[in-house]
């Protein structure tokens, strides 16, 4: 075999027919090509019947490589062959057997399905119930895509709208300057009275429509603000409308009311207190017209108040005449006391600003009175307005309604004079100032007494509610630690305009003048009386007997304030007696009376021979009160009494 020479082998291309086997001799036996029907059967065998018809499209490319024709044409062709196969070749032709089996299976399934459906239709034994299923993954992607699409659509619509809006805004901006003047004018008209005179627009600042009789015309002019370069950037506070205010109403003004103890030098009058209030730092640029007009109206009102006050100050006759100097009205409500009402008007020019740098004195404004002045002038306005209230009888003169009715209702002289007496602004404000001053002075007096004197104590309870002309305070005088038993002195002080009325607990009324000394003396005498009252109360509690009691003792040294009061109490057994004399000025003097048998140095009396007289009380001995122990008078007294009482245990 080794000598065998290499054999040349020729390779031929495969013939169309498939080789079934190659014989030992090299002959090839060819497989007979399949007939049409055989081919069909082979293909039919390869059909997987378990797959649903819906997935046919997907399977088709995977199934056949070169059998495209079979994918499309196999359906009807297979059915035809199927019928033949079933009838003719059932036993012999095996290739169709699987098809047959599959068809049979499907028929069985169809029959079962039909049965099930018919049973379900009856709804007797079986019902269909939906089963919730999770969305399938391929569907989620689908949803995402659809959402994306719709969102994109919405975004487009929004973008379109935004574009349109920006367009209109820019258009507005262009038209703004032209239109703003008119809209501002409209706004101005809502708050202020305007009228057109010639080619000007004039406004009214005055309170005439509210009932003011002040002769100032109070006219302002409305002008168009044109001094702004339209090309440049417009400042934020730019307003196309501006107002021109009369020069005498410019700036700011206020009424200042103050009470001074000493009258200042007459030479300074009218110039001081002018520009005390620091000017508010004005913002760059002109303020808004509304603030401008309000300030001007305030100036006008202040001027009116001052004019009214100064007119009254000149007209009213008082004991001490009111002085009107420049912008100040001076009045003396009480001696050594000066009420000054001044009009402070500061304009914005540089000259006045310089004066604000002056050193400022402590503010002594009476804001309450300043506020009340404004209220009073409004009331005055209202009165003039209400007096011409319509409807009004044609035959009658204008006047107050009560005045009008006084004829038909036959008012007598007193009633008519009560209607007619109208107090002026100045009189009212002076009265209020007097009251305020009197109140503060009374409060100061009570406070200083309370802080100066510890025994007895003074409590003042000011009532929260008060009138402009009257307020009240309740003053309690007590001893510390004995508040419950020593409640004898309770005073109600009604502070009026000119005087203070004191109402005792028992209804007695004492009228004090405005002098603070009177109130102080009165309270001192009450405190002195309180001590004696306290001893009386204490004696009751301790079981001592009151022998004599007097609020106003006629004996002994004369007090400069009030009267001394005295009390004598005897111990329960009657052995001892304590006599107390208490004066507002002289202070307290306490004497103790001992039984005669305790006194050694008592001279033998010719009259009292019998020993029974020894039980009588003998002479008095003064107690050194300062050296007594105890924190206050009543406590000391309690100690003394208990020392002199026999021990009951």
């Amino acid at each position, binding site marked *: 075999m080794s000598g065998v020479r290499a054999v040349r082998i020729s390779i031929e291309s495969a013939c169309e027919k498939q080789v079934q086997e190659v014989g030992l001799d090299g002959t090839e036996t060819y497989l007979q090509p399949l007939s049409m029907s055989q081919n069909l059967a082979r293909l039919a065998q390869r059909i997987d019947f378990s797959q649903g018809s819906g997935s046919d499209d997907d399977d088709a490319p995977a199934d056949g490589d070169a059998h495209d024709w079979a994918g499309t044409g196999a359906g009807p062709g297979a059915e035809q062959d199927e019928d033949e196969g079933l009838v003719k070749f059932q036993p012999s032709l095996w290739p169709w057997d699987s098809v047959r089996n599959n068809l049979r299976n499907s028929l069985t399934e169809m029959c079962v399905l039909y049965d099930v459906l018919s049973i379900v239709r009856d709804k007797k034994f079986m019902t269909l119930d939906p089963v919730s299923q999770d969305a399938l993954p391929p569907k989620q992607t689908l949803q995402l895509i659809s959402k994306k699409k719709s969102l994109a659509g919405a975004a487009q619509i929004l973008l379109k709208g935004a574009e349109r809006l920006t367009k209109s805004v820019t258009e507005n901006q262009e038209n703004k300057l032209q239109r703003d003047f008119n809209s501002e004018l409209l706004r101005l008209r809502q708050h202020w009275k305007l009228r057109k005179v010639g080619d000007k627009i004039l406004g009214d600042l005055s309170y005439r429509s509210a009932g003011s009789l002040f002769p100032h015309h109070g006219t302002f002019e409305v002008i168009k603000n044109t001094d702004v370069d339209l090309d440049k950037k417009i400042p934020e506070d730019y307003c196309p409308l501006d107002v021109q205010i009369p020069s005498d109403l410019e700036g700011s003004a206020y009424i200042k009311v103050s009470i001074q103890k000493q009258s200042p030098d007459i030479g300074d009058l009218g110039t001081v207190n002018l520009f005390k209030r620091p000017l508010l730092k004005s913002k760059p640029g002109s303020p808004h017209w509304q603030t401008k007009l309000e300030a001007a109206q305030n100036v006008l009102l202040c001027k009116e108040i001052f004019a009214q006050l100064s007119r009254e100050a000149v007209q009213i006759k008082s004991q001490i005449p009111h002085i009107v100097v420049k912008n100040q009205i001076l009045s003396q409500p009480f001696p050594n006391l000066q009420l000054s009402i001044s009009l402070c008007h500061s304009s914005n020019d540089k000259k006045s600003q310089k004066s604000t740098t002056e050193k400022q004195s402590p503010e002594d404004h009476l804001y309450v009175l300043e506020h009340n002045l404004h209220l009073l002038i409004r009331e005055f306005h209202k009165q003039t307005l209400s007096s011409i209230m319509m409807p009004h009888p044609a*035959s*009658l003169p204008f006047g107050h309604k009560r005045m009008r009715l*006084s*004829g*038909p209702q*036959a*008012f*007598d*002289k007193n009633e*008519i004079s009560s209607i007619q007496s109208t107090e002026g602004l100045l009189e009212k404000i002076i009265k209020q100032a007097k009251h305020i001053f009197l109140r503060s002075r009374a409060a100061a007096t009570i406070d200083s007494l309370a802080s100066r004197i510890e025994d007895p104590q003074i409590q003042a309870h000011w009532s929260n509610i008060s009138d402009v002309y009257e307020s009240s305070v309740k003053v309690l005088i007590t001893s510390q630690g004995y508040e419950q038993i020593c409640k004898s002195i309770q005073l109600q002080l009604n502070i009026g305009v000119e005087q203070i009325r004191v109402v005792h607990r028992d209804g007695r009324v004492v009228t004090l003048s405005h002098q603070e000394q009177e109130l102080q003396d009165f309270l001192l005498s009450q405190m002195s009386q309180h001590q004696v009252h306290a001893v009386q109360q204490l004696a009751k509690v301790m079981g001592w007997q009151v022998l004599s009691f007097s609020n106003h003792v006629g004996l002994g040294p004369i007090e400069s304030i009030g009267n001394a009061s005295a009390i004598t109490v005897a111990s329960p057994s009657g052995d001892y007696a304590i006599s107390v004399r208490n004066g507002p000025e002289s202070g307290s003097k306490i004497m103790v009376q001992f039984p005669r048998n305790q006194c050694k140095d008592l001279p033998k009396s010719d009259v009292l021979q019998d020993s029974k007289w020894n039980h009588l009380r003998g002479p008095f001995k003064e107690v050194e009160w300062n050296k007594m122990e105890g924190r206050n008078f009543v406590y000391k007294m309690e100690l003394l009494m208990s020392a002199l009482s026999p021990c009951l245990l």
Partner: protein
Amino acid sequence: MGVTCVSQMPVAEGKSVQQTVELLTRKLEMLGAEKQGTFCVDCETYHTAASTLGGQGQSGKLMYVMHNSEHPLSCFALFENGPCLIADTNFDVLMVKLKGFFQSAKASKIETRGTRYQYCDFLVKVGTVTMGPSARGISVEVEYGPCVVASDCWNLLLEFLQSFLGSHTPGAPAVFGNRHDMVYGPADTMVQYMELFNKIRKQQQLPVAGIR
């Protein structure tokens, strides 16, 4: 405005009207009454014009237009036993316009003038009643200020009147009687004055009749 009693004080015998008034005022001053200016009450009579009278024999009613200085802004118009109208002082002007209906009686104006005294709560007015130029009598008006119900204070008034009028103290005025526990008003005073004036007018006529 309180309760008022108006009465007539007869002229003392052997004395003139002026002297009697002086006697009274001196008594008041002795009591401690305070002089407070003067007062005046006047009355004018109007009768309805003949043209407006309907049937015959119907005599025209008399209307009295009165003023009281105590009520300086009012004018009172009264009919005898009739209503009392209280009006503004403008009523006088109106009366001029109503000439066709009400005609003023000639020389009918009667008035009383005098001094006004305040004695605590009492207001006393002693006046001389004059008709034309001649003095005809004396009127005494006493008002008690704090009360407005006549029956409540009549006794007090009476006692006060007795203190200085003595035996000439009048009885309760007729207006008190018909308004029992009613509030006394200014019109009631005017009715009393009207009655007083009418009485004095008749007194004037009576002596004349006596002479006949």
